[in-house]
């Protein structure tokens, strides 16, 4: 089979496997063959009838060809088994006169086989020249590169954050698996598509486009961009986009890697938290407002430099200003009681000058002429800009002050009632005390008369009875003296007095009543007790009250002596104290404080004012009155008073 070849212009001729007649040509031929043999690249010439015409030494070495292969078809030679379409490819080349290349593997070597047209002197192509270039080292590094690329691809595909590479026109080059999954698209359908076409137009943000443009122009940093409302396969999401420039050595083209981060959940949590803290804030504001309303306390902030005043709702209510209307010092002053205005102005001036924390009470005169008592307290501080400001609170004390006044009035009335009540008891006690010696006087005088009336008169008896009459008269006089001491003072007067003496008088006056109640009184009055400052009558009322309570508490006691111990001493706090200890019914620890409340009583016929009045008396003496259950039966009531620096004047 002969193939008709193309005619080529130029080229060499005369290459024959055998020597000719022309010696010059033969020499050139030999030279050429020698040269070809020195070429390390295997060269095989295949004739137009597809048999091996000749080959060089390298072909013999590398392809293991032998002279016997000359004239054989390549398909019959085992080394060419890897090139099954060699004949067709060779005829293509012969017909077209154009080189072609094919890859060829022989054992562990890779070759690129170049099939070139072989021409004779007439430039007629009547065969092919096969040159085998060994590309094994290139092939290995290519394999390695492919392997590396596959690894990288696998890694990138496992990254949970979507990644995409954009070209210089911000068109999608390739993305990782997470990227395609996020937008529900395939690699093929997005290749070369502008990023803006994704996410339902959410990426059409000028700042994002600008930044990507800049990062593609040079490698400066990228500020993350938050993109809300991105439509993805998972619905609307909020994404954060970050970008890094990509450049490749030897390539001028720049690309950009865009990293997407889905922050929808975080955003929702933040929103929920914001909602919660907003709710908490609202609630604490409501608490504060309610607290202010209940405590009748308003708060304010006064920035001195600008005279900006911020008021709480309650403060508007206290001043009876329309809520939210601007507040100025001048406006506040219109509410300040004219008598308190100078104090107010002074305080303001002082605060303006730098002052310090301040607290003062003032009266407000309202539109309806009613008066309010308020107490203002303020703390000096500096705002963020270092400017002087006062933050404070204003409490409406009108109600409290009114109830205090009412309470004081009620207490003084109660004291009066109590004084009358105890004086009634005292009067009876005194009458008893006076009647005893008077009885003796009358009896003795009667006896005396009878002794003198008989004949002979019993003069010794008469003298004796007369002496007794005088003695009993003196005794009655002493009682009268005590009585006068009790009644002589009408007004509350503080004077140095001996508490022991006052106590003895009360014991003396109430002893018979106590004895009638079978109460055994032990007095343990301290020697050298310092004087106290007080009103004798009032303190004696308290002592009398404590003695009567102790006695009443023991009325039902039958199984033990009704012991009452009254003791005075200078206590550890250097105060003069008096305690009354009984063995009566005792106290419940939890009701101890109630005892001192007005109208609280444990007695069937009690009014429940004794202890409350007693406490108010002791407190008006700057003292303390308290009660405690005993370890054994009964209770102990005590009061203590400050000692007086003055001596008792009598």
């Amino acid at each position: 089979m002969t193939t008709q070849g193309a005619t080529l212009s130029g080229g060499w001729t005369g290459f024959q496997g055998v020597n000719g007649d022309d010696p010059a040509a033969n020499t050139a031929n030999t030279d050429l063959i020698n040269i070809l043999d020195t070429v390390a690249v295997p060269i095989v010439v295949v004739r137009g009838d597809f048999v091996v015409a000749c080959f060089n030494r390298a072909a013999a070495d590398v392809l293991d060809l032998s002279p016997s292969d000359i004239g054989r078809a390549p398909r019959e030679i085992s080394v060419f088994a890897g090139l099954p379409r060699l004949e067709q490819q060779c005829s293509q080349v012969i017909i077209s006169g154009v080189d072609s290349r094919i890859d060829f593997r022989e054992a562990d070597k890779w070759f690129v086989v170049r099939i070139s047209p072989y021409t004779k002197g007439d430039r007629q192509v009547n065969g092919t020249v096969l040159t085998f270039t060994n590309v094994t080292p290139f092939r290995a590094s290519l394999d390695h590169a492919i392997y590396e690329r596959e690894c990288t691809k696998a890694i990138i595909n496992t990254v949970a954050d979507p990644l995409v590479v954009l070209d210089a026109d911000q068109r999608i080059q390739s993305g990782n698996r997470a990227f395609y999954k996020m937008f529900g698209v395939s690699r093929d359908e997005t290749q070369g598509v502008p990023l803006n076409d994704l996410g339902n137009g959410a990426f059409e943000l000028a700042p994002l486009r600008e930044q990507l443009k800049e990062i593609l122009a040079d490698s400066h940093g990228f500020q993350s961009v938050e993109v809300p409302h991105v439509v993805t396969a998972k619905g609307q999401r909020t994404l954060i986009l970050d970008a890094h420039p990509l450049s490749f050595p030897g390539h001028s083209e720049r690309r950009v890697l865009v990293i997407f981060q889905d922050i929808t959940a975080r955003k929702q949590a933040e929103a929920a938290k914001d909602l919660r803290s907003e709710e908490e804030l609202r609630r604490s504001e409501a608490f504060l407002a309610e607290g202010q309303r209940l405590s009748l306390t308003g708060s304010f902030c006064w920035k001195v430099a600008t005279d900006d005043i911020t008021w709480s709702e309650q403060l508007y209510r206290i001043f009876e200003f329309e809520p939210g209307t601007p507040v100025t010092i001048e406006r506040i002053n219109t509410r300040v009681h004219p008598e308190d205005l100078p104090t107010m102005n002074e305080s303001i001036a002082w605060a303006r000058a730098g002052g310090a924390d301040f607290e003062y009470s003032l009266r407000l005169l309202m539109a309806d002429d009613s008066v309010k008592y308020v107490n203002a307290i303020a703390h000096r501080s500096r705002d963020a800009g270092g400017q002087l400001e006062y933050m404070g609170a204003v409490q409406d004390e009108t109600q409290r002050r009114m109830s205090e006044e009412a309470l004081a009035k009620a207490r003084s009335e109660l004291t009066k009632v109590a004084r009358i009540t105890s004086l009634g008891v005292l009067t009876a006690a005194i009458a008893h005390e006076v009647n005893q010696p008077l009885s003796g006087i009358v009896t003795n005088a009667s006896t005396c008369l009878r002794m003198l009336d008989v004949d002979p008169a019993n003069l010794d008896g008469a003298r004796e009875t007369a002496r007794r009459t005088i003695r009993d008269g003196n005794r009655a006089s002493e009682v009268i003296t005590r009585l006068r001491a009790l009644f002589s003072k009408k007004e509350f007067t503080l004077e140095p007095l001996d508490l022991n003496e006052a106590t003895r008088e009360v014991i003396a006056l109430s002893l018979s009543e106590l004895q009638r109640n079978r109460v055994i009184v032990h007095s343990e009055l301290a020697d050298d007790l310092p004087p106290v400052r007080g009103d004798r009558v009032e303190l004696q009322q308290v002592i009398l009250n404590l003695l009567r309570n102790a006695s009443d508490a023991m009325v039902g006691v039958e199984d033990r002596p009704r012991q009452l111990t009254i003791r005075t001493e200078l206590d550890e706090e250097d105060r003069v104290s008096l305690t009354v200890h009984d063995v009566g019914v005792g106290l419940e620890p939890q009701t101890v404080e109630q005892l001192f409340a007005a109208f609280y009583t444990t007695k069937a016929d009690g009014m429940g004012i004794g202890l409350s009045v007693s406490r108010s008396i002791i407190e008006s003496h700057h003292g303390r009155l308290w009660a405690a259950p005993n370890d054994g039966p009964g209770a102990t009531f005590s009061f203590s008073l400050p000692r007086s620096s003055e001596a008792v004047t009598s």
Partner: protein
Amino acid sequence: MTITRSLVSVVDDDESVRESLPDLLNEMGFAVQVFSSADEFLTSDFVRLTKILILDIAMPGMSGPELQEELKRRGRRIPIVFITAKKDDTVRPSLIARGAVECLFKPFSDTALLSALNAALRVA
């Protein structure tokens, strides 16, 4: 002739009464024993000998009216003249209702005492 003087027992915690009353009663012709408390009287040998009891109302320990009840319980019907330093108009009728002969408020006159004792002798 032996004149037996009627025994008047005085029970009063007040010393001036115990001191002054016996002399007056002697002058009036009575024999007298004084006791400072109800217990002292009850534990003495004079309970059964006493013709008339002059009894203070308010005393430490057993009071006068309590002694009155105790004597009643023991079946001793001794006429009692109460004496008291506490002038309380409600006391007298209730004591008389419970069997007392009289209730005198201190200080009392010798004639008031004598008429009360005479009334007691009539009851006895």
